[in-house]
Each structure stands twice: as structure tokens, then as C-alpha cells.
């Protein structure tokens, strides 16, 4: 009898310990949210919501400091959108190659390449962008803006470089998620299409991809999340001025603003940086919610 009571006690303790482990995730998300809000809102008061979020002038260390982060927000949106526009088609077609077209031998080359791309640390992408993309961009810049009086030369650190780096970085995510949803499309549908006289390519683009739509969308949204949150790699290639996100402009993203100024900012400047963090956090949370909706939708479809 005593033994049984002991076992019961052990069982109960085990259960509560496991439960505590599981609940840590909830605590983490809650405290991150609370901290981001608590630290991110004071600047809205001290600088003013309009001046902060819709101001276009960023001069935190000037005598009359200005803290407008509109261009930073726009850069993140434009940069993310552009990288997704490049990365998604390339990723989707690569997924099509892997699942529909390639034989096993070729897939055995492409697949590991994509896995490795996913594992390469972002600073290495940044380093290569810095050494290879930026000099190339500088050459193009010199050609294009030769006679321009208004263009501020960047030495090649610009939005395009950042977009290219981001597009490469989201590629593995898009490929993997799309490939698994293409694989999940029933062979019956492909057979029906072939039996009507459709070619392989027609079948892929008119039946398989539409049928895998929701999975592919998940990949796109995951890609958006990755691109929005990437900091170090693009901080190395995007330059450092807060400007309108034009292709050859040196720009600041929400993330790169944090990386490059958090180290030394003080006072209101620091508060504003936390607001930048909060804006980023809100974007990410929206992306996360969309993602979870998509996943739930996909589950109920099956």
C-alpha cells in the first residue's frame, strides 16, 4: 500500500514537471509580448505618434533631434515584398523540379544543396554580399547615375543587394514547404489531367500547383516572416541611411536599424529603437497569425 502511494506521488510529480516544461513556451511568448509593448510605447508619447511613425526625417543625434521611422517601415515592407517576389517563383519552380520533373539522380544533387543553403549562417550571406554584390552594385551605380547631381553614392550598399540576399535566404523555406505540398497532391488528379491529353508542364501548372495552393501559400508566408526578421546579413549589405526605399539607395530596415544603433543609443533615441522593435514585432505577429490560420485551413481541408 505504501509503495503504491509512493508510485502515485512520483507519477504526480512527473506530470507536473512535464506540464511546467510545456507551459514555459506560453510564459515566454507572454513576457516577450509584454516587454516589447512596455518598452516600445513610451517613445510614442515622448516623440508623438504622428511624428514618430509618419515622420520621414531621422536625425537622432542632431541638436534638434528628429525620429521619423516611416522610411524604415517602408524599407522593410518594400524589401520583403521584393525578395518574396523573386524568391517565391524561383523556389516554387525548384520545388516543381524536385517533385515533378527531376529523376532521382538530379534530385540527389539539388535537394542537399537546398538543405545546406538553409543551414548556412546569415552572417556568411552578409559577408559574401559585402564582398561580391556590393562592388558589382557600385559599378552599376556609377554607370546609371554618372550624370546625376541628386544621387548620393553608396558604394554599392543598397536595397537591391539586400533584396538579393534575402531572396536567397528565403529560398530553402519556400522550396521545402512547396515541395512537400506538391508531393501531397493525389496522383489521381495528375492522371486525370494526362488522360485528357495535357502535357506534363500543363498538368503541373494547371492542376498540381493550384491543388497545392494552400501549402504553397504557407511557404510564401513563412518566407515573408523570414525576410522581415532577417537582420545581420542585410545589415552588412544594405547601407546605413534612412531613405526612401529606391533600388540604388542605401537603406535601413527595421531590423538593421536595431542592429546598428542599439549598441550605443541612449535616452529618447533608445526608446525610439524599442518602438522600431515593437513595429517589427507587430508585423511578425500578423505574419504568424496568418500562418496559423493557413495551417488550420489546410488541416480541415484534408
Amino acid at each position, binding site marked *: 500500500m505504501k509503495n503504491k502511494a509512493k508510485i502515485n506521488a512520483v507519477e504526480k510529480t512527473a506530470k507536473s514537471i512535464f506540464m511546467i516544461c510545456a507551459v514555459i513556451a506560453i510564459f515566454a511568448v507572454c513576457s516577450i509580448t509584454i516587454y516589447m509593448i512596455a518598452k516600445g510605447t513610451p517613445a510614442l508619447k515622448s516623440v508623438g505618434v504622428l511624428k514618430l511613425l509618419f515622420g520621414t526625417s531621422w536625425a537622432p543625434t542632431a541638436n534638434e533631434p528628429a525620429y521619423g521611422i516611416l522610411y524604415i517601415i517602408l524599407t522593410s515592407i518594400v524589401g520583403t515584398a521584393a525578395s518574396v517576389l523573386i524568391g517565391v517563383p524561383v523556389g516554387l519552380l525548384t520545388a516543381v523540379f524536385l517533385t515533378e520533373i527531376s529523376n532521382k539522380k538530379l534530385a540527389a544533387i539539388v535537394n542537399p544543396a537546398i538543405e545546406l543553403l538553409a543551414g548556412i549562417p546569415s552572417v556568411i550571406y552578409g559577408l559574401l554580399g559585402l564582398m561580391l554584390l556590393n562592388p558589382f552594385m557600385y559599378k552599376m551605380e556609377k554607370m546609371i547615375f554618372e550624370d546625376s547631381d541628386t544621387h548620393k553614392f553608396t558604394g554599392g550598399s543598397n536595397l537591391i543587394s539586400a533584396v538579393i540576399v534575402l531572396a536567397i535566404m528565403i529560398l530553402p523555406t519556400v522550396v521545402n514547404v512547396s515541395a512537400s505540398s506538391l508531393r501531397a497532391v493525389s496522383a489521381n*488528379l495528375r492522371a*486525370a489531367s494526362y488522360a485528357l491529353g495535357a502535357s506534363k508542364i500543363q498538368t503541373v501548372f494547371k492542376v498540381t500547383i493550384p491543388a497545392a495552393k494552400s501549402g504553397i501559400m504557407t511557404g510564401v508566408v513563412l518566407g515573408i516572416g523570414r525576410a522581415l526578421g532577417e537582420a545581420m546579413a542585410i545589415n552588412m549589405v544594405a547601407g546605413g541611411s534612412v531613405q526612401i526605399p529606391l533600388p540604388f539607395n542605401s537603406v535601413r530596415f527595421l531590423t538593421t536599424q536595431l542592429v546598428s544603433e542599439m549598441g550605443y543609443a541612449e535616452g529618447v533615441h533608445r526608446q525610439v529603437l524599442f518602438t522600431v522593435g515593437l513595429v517589427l514585432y507587430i508585423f511578425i505577429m500578423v505574419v504568424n497569425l496568418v500562418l496559423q490560420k493557413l495551417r488550420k485551413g489546410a488541416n480541415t481541408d484534408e
Partner: protein
Amino acid sequence: MMETAKIKVKKLNLYYGDNHALKDIDIKIRPKAVTAFIGPSGCGKSTFLKTLNRMNDLVENVKIEGEVLLDEKDIYAPGVDTTILRKKVGMVFQQPNPFPMSIYDNIAYGPRIHGIKDKRKLDEIVEESLRGAAIFDEVKDRLKKNALGLSGGQQQRICIARALAVCPEVLLMDEPTSALDPISTSKIEDLMEDLKKKYTVVIVTHNMQQAVRVADDTAFFLLGELIEFRETKLLFSYPQDKRTEDYITGRFG
């Protein structure tokens, strides 16, 4: 038994890797008639059906020898474009497999991939095909709704309409009613009476009564061989081969 043949098969052998799945099949299929393939499962009847529109090409490791002549032209000759072949030889599958799109887009899929873009022409084809598959009246008010919302029997008739929309000459049906309820089955069997006026219909069935009801000719397959092929009435009344007799009297299968 017949003077003209829509499809002539000569000495057809098919291998899945080392497995000799079809052995020396010779058969002539009459135009504008229903031909049924019967036999126990695994006898090769479905595999044989798929050689008639080269759907077996999609399976890895398949080797096919012999000739399949469609209107006297060998469909396995080098240079044959399977997309043109499959437009002429349509197919309906065992499981209803409408695309996850609207009823209209399902039917218009075939014409569209073959290059028809004109909206009015497509409307016409869709209506005609749906009427041809005896389902127009049931779905005419919801052509824009997703085809997956229909019942299994309706889905199968949508699939038949989809196959008709590319104006095939031959319609292959691979156990088209085995996944359906009796009422839907009888609707599709009735439909076959109409279909054979315009098309050459070949149906695989494991249901002998169905063969008796719908088929003009019946072929009995066993272990990859064509055992007997005659007019349906004759085959079921006076089987010539002992194995056919055993099968239709229910001794095995």
C-alpha cells in the same frame, strides 16, 4: 464477328520489371460499341486498358512489346505524341477524380489545354458535355461551385463529361462504378447506352452483371492472358473455355 475495328491489338506483352503482366494479347475492338473486360482482380484487365491510351508510360519500369493500332495507326510507334493520342482516347477512372475547381472549369479544362479560349465556344462545349454525361440539369445552376461539393455519383458523371469535352473517339472506363452506390451505378450504366452511339466505349468491370447489362462484347482475362473474347450474350451463354465457364459460374474470382 466483326469486319471493322477501331482498335486492333497484336501480340501485346507488358512487363513490370521482371513481372510479365500481359501475355500475347490479340484483340479487335468494334467501333461505336461497348466492350467489357472482366476477370478476377490482378488479371491484368486494368493494365491492358491503360495500354490503349498509354497511361502506363507514366509508371516506371514498364516495358511494352507488340502493336496497338488505333484506326490502323500504331500508337506505340516512335514519334507518337501521347497528348494527341489521349485527346482521342479519353479515360474515366475508378475513383471519381474531379479537379479541386469549379464544375465549369473542370469541364473546360480539356478544351482549354488544347487551345480553345473563346468564351462562347467553351460555354457551348461545357453544356454539351454535361448533357452528354446526363448531369446538366442537376448542376446547371451551380456551374461555378466547386466540383468537390457534389456526391460521388455526380462527381463521376462530371468526370465523364470532362472526358467528353475534348471530343474523344474512344472512351476508356476503368471500373467507373465500383466506388458508387447502386442508384448512381444504374445512372452511369444507362448513360453508356447513349455514349456508344457516338463513342467506342471500353469498360473494365469486376461485376459480371454489369458486363451483361451494358456490353456488346466481353473479354475475359486471367493471369495476364486473354482467355476468351466474344459477343457478351455468347460468352455468358456458351463459354468455350473451361476457365471462362468456371469464372462466370462463380467457381473462383
